[in-house]
């Protein structure tokens, strides 16, 4: 069987984040051969990987440290194979976070900071934190100039967010999409084959599954081109 015909092998990095079940089921539905694992060896043999995450940054970094996964994740990212990170997973790509004390993976320059609480949004309302619910997302590039994972997604599409901290990439070119919540908020970053979303594709119904389908196809394409 050629690479194009077999399902791409995608490792969902298991650091005991609570959304692993939904992420892995969604990727399976979108055509991936999914392995949920905390094994560095499995990660380094995969065609693509997904770093999930909800909850606290320090707890996630501590878990990755205990599993000896921090260096393997960096090595995987440097190998040029697609690594998709979701929600807290995206925040972990940065050097550190205002949320915690432990350093992050440091794969993307910038900061992770908390939403301003008690920010008035008029009519007696205050900005609610967490930013929770479906928000519309606009991409920074035209469709044909985007990373393949985000192609075909109309600007203004709604995705499900739930987070209290948000990313501020230093390099504007790394910011792939924005949403509005008390001001512009980074909704996705792309740097080479690091692809990350602040929103949860696995909780964003058809639009989210479209992104995972794109990701699985992209992983298959890059795996095939490596073989050639």
């Amino acid at each position, binding site marked *: 069987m050629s690479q194009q015909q077999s399902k791409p092998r995608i490792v969902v990095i298991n650091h005991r984040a*609570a*959304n692993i*079940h*939904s992420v892995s*089921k*969604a990727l399976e539905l979108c055509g991936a051969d999914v392995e949920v694992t905390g094994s560095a060896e499995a990660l380094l043999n995969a065609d693509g990987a997904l770093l999930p995450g*909800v*909850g*606290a940054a320090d707890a996630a970094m501590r878990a990755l440290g205990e599993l000896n996964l921090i260096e393997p994740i960096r090595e995987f990212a440097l190998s040029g194979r697609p690594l998709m990170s979701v929600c807290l997973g995206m925040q972990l790509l940065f050097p550190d976070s205002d949320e915690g004390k432990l350093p992050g993976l440091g794969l993307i320059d910038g900061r992770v900071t908390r939403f301003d*609480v*008690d920010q008035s949004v008029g*009519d*007696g*309302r*205050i*900005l*609610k*934190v*967490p*930013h*929770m*619910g*479906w*928000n*519309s997302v606009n991409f920074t590039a035209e469709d044909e100039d985007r990373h393949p994972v985000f192609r075909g997604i*109309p600007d203004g*599409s*709604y995705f*499900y*967010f*739930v*987070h*209290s901290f948000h990313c501020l990439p230093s390099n504007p070119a790394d910011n792939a999409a924005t949403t*509005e*919540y008390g001001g512009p908020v980074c909704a996705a970053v792309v740097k080479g084959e690091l692809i990350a979303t602040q929103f949860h594709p*696995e*909780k*964003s*119904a*058809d*639009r*989210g*599954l479209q992104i995972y389908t794109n990701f699985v196809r992209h992983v298959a394409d890059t795996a095939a081109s490596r073989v050639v």
Partner: protein
Amino acid sequence: MLAHRIIPCLDIDRGRVVKGVSFVNLRDAGDPAEMARFYNEAGADELVFLDITASSDDRDTMVEVVRRVSSEVFIPLTVGGGIRSVEDVRRMLEAGADKVSMNTAAINRPELIREASAEFGAQCIVLAIDAKRVDTPGDVTPENRPDLVAESPWLVFTHGGRNPTAQDAVKWAQHGAELGAGEILITSMDTDGQKGGYDLELLRAISDTVSIPVIASGGAGNLDHMYDALYEGHSDAVLAASIFHFGEYSVAEAKQYLSDRGLPMRLPTTSE
């Protein structure tokens, strides 16, 4: 812009949907997965499953229900009913729930909110509050229960509005947020089941006080009631059961109506 959310609530008894959708042609309207698919296709923004199973022996059934639904339907799922410990929360989240709601267990032991929030993050802890006005004749008043007087007009009740607690509803919501709840689900026991609209004063009092999102529950009889809860009541989301289950309105109709009246809503995506 962040959209308001419409959240159908399903009662689950021993793994089966009760009082479920009764008007459309579903193969099995008692099947939680089939109902979840139905509501996802109708544009529901989230789902709440309330486990009303009386016997704790049947609680494992709910874990299986959550695992199956979250393997097939990719919108947020909240599970309430019978959550009494951090271990209960863990089981539901590992099965694929995104949030759990806690009510009586949090009143009995508020530290449960802090512990679960520290372990899994505030985003997955919903504090459900049943509130009732206590200034009506025959209710709890300063005269008959001087120990139970609220600072706001609302006290927290348990057991479907029968048992008053010593908690002021607005203060309890605030305290719950401080302890680490990520969202408040507020039900008015005065308006629940009456179909005459939500208690807008209650919603606004809580929404304008706490800095976390608020879901309004109890009283939807028509779509204007939902509009009022979101616009006048300052709620972030509305929860409803019978208005959807008995086909008076579809979720899609509700969202279109609210959007036409100027509220930000996630409307169904146009076909590709």
